[in-house]
């Protein structure tokens, strides 16, 4: 079969999963819906491998294969096809997306077991994966926007999956609104592209762009900046990042899906996909890289202070995506995409482990109320440590090869690009520190009551409450189910986490500088006309970058060990000593408060003004004025309706007589 046939199958299976679960849920019992969902994505992954094999059968310069099912719109120079593009970049993405999503589905089969919305959950989850696959397989900008918007909707549906929990519905709305801002940017960029190039098709756009535009022409910069708005909203980069930490309101596997496989990587993919345009607009690419750098440092500092387990990992995602954005913006495409892959492995693992931990302490998410879980949860502990090692880019884990390759490339490009390397290494130190802050706070120290109970083999089920506000809840549909599930007791969770744990350690071995470079050689087919792709640092320079990153990681872990294990009081002392700094970081640099003051409150005030003045006074005034006028005239005219038939007859006859007289006189 041709690669595109496999590509269509990759899209077909998740869509079938959505439909089966959405319409057939009445007939399903137990975990059926979960297994159907998992099988759908698993088949999509199998087809992705099929696409990979089929693509490898083509020669290296002929690996951009398009296919179209039908014409979507055809009018006045507009020719949009429902077409997909299968090339090394999209195959790489569908492999990562469907592969990691399969494991997340597998984990969810057990994790969501007692939830009343079980089939709905898997229907949404399949739809999310379908949307993301559509986004990465799209062969033109229109289909890209369709997938882009589907992803936005799916994230909304899943973040507010527990729809009776008002913090969750609010978080869903926030994510949706910020994503729509990004959609607007993407749509506007597409308009510009169509105006100047007359086509939406990737191949045609990228081949004609080099003739139509010259470097740093205004319109190319505008297109790239608008694309960045879209990319940053999806990838949660400054200043559109605020939805991502709030998205933690969704079920934990959803967080894993959003952060690891789908959604946030879309922005990175978009920049890599449109690299032709970004190379024509180096200014926009540099802006993007600087925003990525700012984001990765900002998010790393936030992750130091936040105490919500899932939000720490969320900030680490923002930070890691920042690395990817820096990578694909400065031209380290292969390294950026490689980081996307390894990040998908260890971030999904971290979230799954976090979900297991949260279940073990009866739904609490605050790490202040965790501790000493090492003995109670040996599997989760080991796997989460693996995830944290990979996140910290500890030597020879997967994160080590990917992150430090980006930074090595930044050094290699020289000039001011060295700034990215310096900032990146500094943040790498913070990353290692906060990654092990999680491990040491959760698994070391004095065991909490829940941990002690679990050591006796009993999993505590506290009365259900909102982990954020402490409000009382029930376990009916719209709220989390009553049971908790941990990896130690559930085979599907254990299996999914183990596979990811394996990949988190060994996934990096596919791209050892100077040894195999699998990812780099494979992706080269999508970056054939990129001047930056070939300009790679030497193997020795790569290894120097890796060594420096490894050192940073070891120092960070050692520091965390010192602060949280050797001298447990240190962190409290530091908080007392640097209270304002801690408050600043704890409140995430006051970004939410800033938006509250700058955007939210003025809008609410405008709305209130429109309601009280425009609506109540102007609009209602006009309406009631007209009504009163009609009624007043009616009162006057009503007097004529006396009910005397003879009076009517007099008026009639008198009127005719008067008319007759008038015409008689007028005709003279």
């Amino acid at each position, binding site marked *: 079969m041709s690669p595109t046939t496999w590509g269509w199958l990759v899209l077909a299976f998740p869509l079938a999963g959505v439909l089966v679960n959405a319409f057939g849920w009445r007939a399903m019992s137990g975990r059926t819906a979960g297994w159907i969902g998992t099988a759908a994505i698993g088949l999509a992954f199998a087809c992705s491998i099929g696409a990979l094999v089929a693509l490898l059968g083509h020669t290296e310069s002929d690996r951009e294969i398009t296919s179209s099912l039908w014409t979507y719109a055809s009018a006045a120079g507009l020719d949009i096809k429902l077409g997909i593009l299968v090339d090394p970049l999209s195959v790489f993405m569908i492999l990562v997306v469907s592969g990691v999503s399969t494991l997340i589905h597998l984990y969810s089969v057990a994790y969501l077991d007692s939830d009343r919305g079980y089939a709905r959950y898997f229907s949404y989850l399949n739809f999310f994966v379908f949307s993301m696959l559509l986004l990465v397989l799209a062969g033109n900008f229109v289909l890209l926007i369709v997938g882009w918007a589907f992803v936005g909707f799916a994230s909304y549906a899943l973040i507010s999956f527990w729809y009776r929990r008002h913090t969750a519905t609010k978080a869903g709305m926030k994510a949706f609104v910020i994503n729509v801002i990004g959609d607007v940017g993407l749509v506007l960029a597409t308009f510009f592209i169509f105006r100047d190039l007359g086509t939406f098709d990737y191949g045609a756009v990228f081949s004609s762009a080099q003739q139509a535009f010259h470097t740093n022409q205004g319109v190319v910069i505008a297109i790239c900046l608008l694309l960045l708005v879209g990319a940053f909203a999806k990838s949660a980069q400054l200043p559109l990042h605020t939805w991502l930490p709030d998205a933690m309101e969704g079920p934990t596997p959803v967080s894993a899906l959003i952060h690891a496989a789908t959604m946030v990587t879309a922005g990175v993919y978009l920049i890599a996909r449109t690299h032709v345009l970004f190379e024509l607009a180096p200014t926009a690419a540099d802006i993007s890289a600087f925003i990525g750098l700012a984001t990765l440092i900002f998010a790393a500092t936030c992750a130091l202070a936040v105490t919500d387990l899932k939000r720490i990992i969320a900030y680490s995602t923002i930070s890691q995506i920042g690395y990817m954005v820096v990578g694909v913006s400065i031209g380290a495409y292969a390294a950026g995409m490689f980081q996307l892959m390894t990040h998908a492995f260890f971030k999904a693992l971290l979230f799954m482990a976090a979900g297991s931990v949260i279940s073990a302490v009866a739904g609490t998410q605050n790490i202040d109320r965790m501790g000493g879980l090492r003995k109670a949860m040996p599997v989760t502990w080991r796997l989460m440590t693996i995830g944290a090692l990979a996140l910290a880019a500890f030597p020879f884990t997967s994160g080590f090869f990917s992150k430090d390759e980006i930074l090595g490339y930044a050094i290699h490009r020289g000039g001011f690009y060295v700034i990215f390397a310096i900032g990146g290494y500094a943040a790498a130190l913070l990353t290692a520190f906060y990654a092990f802050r999680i491990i040491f706070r959760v698994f070391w120290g004095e065991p909490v009551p829940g941990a002690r109970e679990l050591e006796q083999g009993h999993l505590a089920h506290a009365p259900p409450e909102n982990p954020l506000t402490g409000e009382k809840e029930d376990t009916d549909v719209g709220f989390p189910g009553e049971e908790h599930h941990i990896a130690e007791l559930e085979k599907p969770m254990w299996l999914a986490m183990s596979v990811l744990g394996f990949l988190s350690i060994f996934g990096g071995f596919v791209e050892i500088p100077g040894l195999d470079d699998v990812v780099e050689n494979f992706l080269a087919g999508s970056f054939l006309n990129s001047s930056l792709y070939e300009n790679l640092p030497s193997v020795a320079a790569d290894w120097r970058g890796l060594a420096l990153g490894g050192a940073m990681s070891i120092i960070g872990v050692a520091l965390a060990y010192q602060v949280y294990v050797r001298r447990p009081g240190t962190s409290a002392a530091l908080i007392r000593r640097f209270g304002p700094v801690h408050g600043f970081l704890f409140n995430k640099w006051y970004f939410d408060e800033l938006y509250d003051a700058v955007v939210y409150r003025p809008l609410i005030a405008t709305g209130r003004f429109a309601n009280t003045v425009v609506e109540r006074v102007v609009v209602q005034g006009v309406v009631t004025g007209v009504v009163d006028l009609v009624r007043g005239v009616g009162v006057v*005219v*009503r*007097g*004529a*309706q*006396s*009910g*005397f*038939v*003879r009076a009517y*007859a*007099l008026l009639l*006859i008198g009127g005719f007589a008067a008319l007759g007289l008038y015409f008689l006189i007028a005709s003279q």
Partner: protein
Amino acid sequence: MTVTWYVVLSAVLFAIGAGGVLIRRSPLVILLCLELMLNAGNLALVAFSRAHGNAEGQVFALIVMVVAACEVVIGLGLIVAMFRRRLPLNVDEMRGLKG
């Protein structure tokens, strides 16, 4: 004889009818006066038709008779209905339809 006399007679009959409609209170007499007005109109139509040598006016007169017959049917029907419900046969007291 010119058409004038016929038209004058028609005008007089019409004025008598109109005056009756305005002055009398009994619905039966009002109906009679209406009939008088219609026939005054008929007279004028027929007179003009004859004077101009055109038969269309006579056709109109026939149509007016048909309309008048219908009107009488309804009008008498109403009067009978009023009588059977023991309502006063006085149009000034039938004034439920006021604004």
